């Protein structure tokens, strides 16, 4: 059953009919499982990975490390929620190690991102400090290699 979600995660455009053929699970069951998954948030979103560099549209990403004073009773959750409510904070993780929250921030320019960090994130109550790393080059994202040469080709006909 999880196979259905694995297939959709790789290619959201696979139809239930194709998925039914690929997995051997009856079509009606596939459709039901997908419908249920959409309803109960197993499937959070269908999306397309776009390589914006090819379109020439500027986007600046930064990984912001945030050190936080955890609150009594709620731990990190409350502060994490205050951060992730900002649309600029695209990804928010609680991590182990030398800092607490890893936040991926996006903006149109470095100034915009830096401004967001310094004016919206850093001053939040409970935030002890932030370190901002601007993303300089994306090699691979979510399993997809962005650039890179085409690999060697196979012999097209072989017995």
């Amino acid at each position, binding site marked *: 059953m999880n196979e259905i979600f694995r297939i959709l995660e790789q290619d959201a455009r696979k139809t239930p009919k194709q998925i039914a*053929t*690929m*997995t051997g699970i009856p079509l009606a069951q596939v459709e039901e499982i997908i419908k249920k998954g959409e309803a109960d948030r197993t499937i959070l979103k269908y999306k397309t990975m776009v390589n914006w560099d090819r379109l020439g549209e500027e986007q600046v990403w930064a990984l912001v490390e945030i050190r936080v004073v955890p609150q009594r009773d709620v731990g990190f959750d409350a502060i994490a929620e205050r951060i992730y409510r900002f649309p600029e904070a695209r990804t928010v993780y609680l991590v182990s190690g030398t800092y607490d929250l890893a936040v991926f921030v996006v903006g149109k320019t470095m100034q915009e991102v830096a401004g967001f960090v310094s004016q919206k994130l850093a001053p939040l109550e409970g935030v002890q400090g932030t370190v901002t790393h601007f993303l300089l080059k994306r090699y691979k994202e979510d399993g997809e290699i962005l650039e890179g040469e085409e*690999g060697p080709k*196979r*012999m*097209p*006909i*072989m*017995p």
Partner: protein
Amino acid sequence: MEKRDLISKRVRDIPPSGIRKFFDLLASMEGVISLGVGEPDFVTPWHIREAGIYSVEKGYTSYTSNYGLLELREGIARYLKARYGLDYDPGSELLITVGVSEGLDLAARAILDPGDEVITPDPGYVSYMPCTVLAGGVFVPVPTTIENDFQVKAQDIEKRINPRTKAILLGYPNNPTGAVVDRKELLKVAQVAERHNLIVISDEVYERLVYGVQHTCFASLPGMKERTILLNGFSKAYAMTGWRIGYAAAPEEIIEAMMKIHQYTMMCAPTMAQMAAIEAVKSGDEQVEEMVADYDKRRRIMVKGLNDIGLTCFEPRGAFYAFPSIKSTRLSSDEFAERLLIEEKVAVVPGSTFGQYGEGYIRCCYATSLTEIEEALKRMGRFVKRHRA
């Protein structure tokens, strides 16, 4: 002075490859989707490549023992024990070969005297006939048909046995049909081999690529270990086709004979390939399972797609080939393949390439991306409509 034939009669008598002309045609075309490939579309897993690179870096560039690195033979012995309960002595019953191709050549040359006959299913892999003939043997094809899902029948083999028969050559899971023979029938073949005191050469290079069935290792059948030359390799399971690395497992006397030829003609398999193979047999399993699961999905799409467009295809349970019938068109296998390539830019291999019982079929490889498979099926659907009988 009389003009001499430069080329030996034996080689002249081997018919030219049925697919040479497709190479040339393809070379002149753009935008072709090829279902005619014969190898995985995965690259050798990185940890295996890394082991090969490391061995070159560290200077492992000299010959190994003719038998191959002991560590590799020990790894293979462990593998065969774990999967099939077979006990091969790594010191004397295993030989590392330059791909299964060399293993096949060595096996034929080691056991065949001039005129000895070898019975093998038709259609079958293109090398079986030439290797038999080049070793001086006589090639005896036994037909397999769609009625039996292209599984060979023991009784059909037995019908063709005579005092000159030396060996049965099996290749399952099968190239080109994708057929897997069930254990019950293989047991009957084993009984035939025993009754007539025959050697069995079992090419099991697609052993890991099975879907919904268990692969039966021929050597693991009762009484068969002492008369089977088991050929296997790393090309298909670990996507190591270009490395040229395989192995033969057989009784000591046979391995010694094969090694005798190998030591003079090849010396040893490439050292860096052997070192990479050690890594493969040690920790390659997870990737193999992932690859098989991926192929399974594509197999289902391919087989359903072929049936949907009117090319009846039995369900192949092994390797990565579908072998549909083209009888719904007015064309021979060769004509179908050639016209399909020219008209729709899809390459397949005519079934007749693999034997006379492959006529009326084409081989479609699904070791290619789903996108390509789906596009190819669309184009083939148009083609079949145009040429319907």
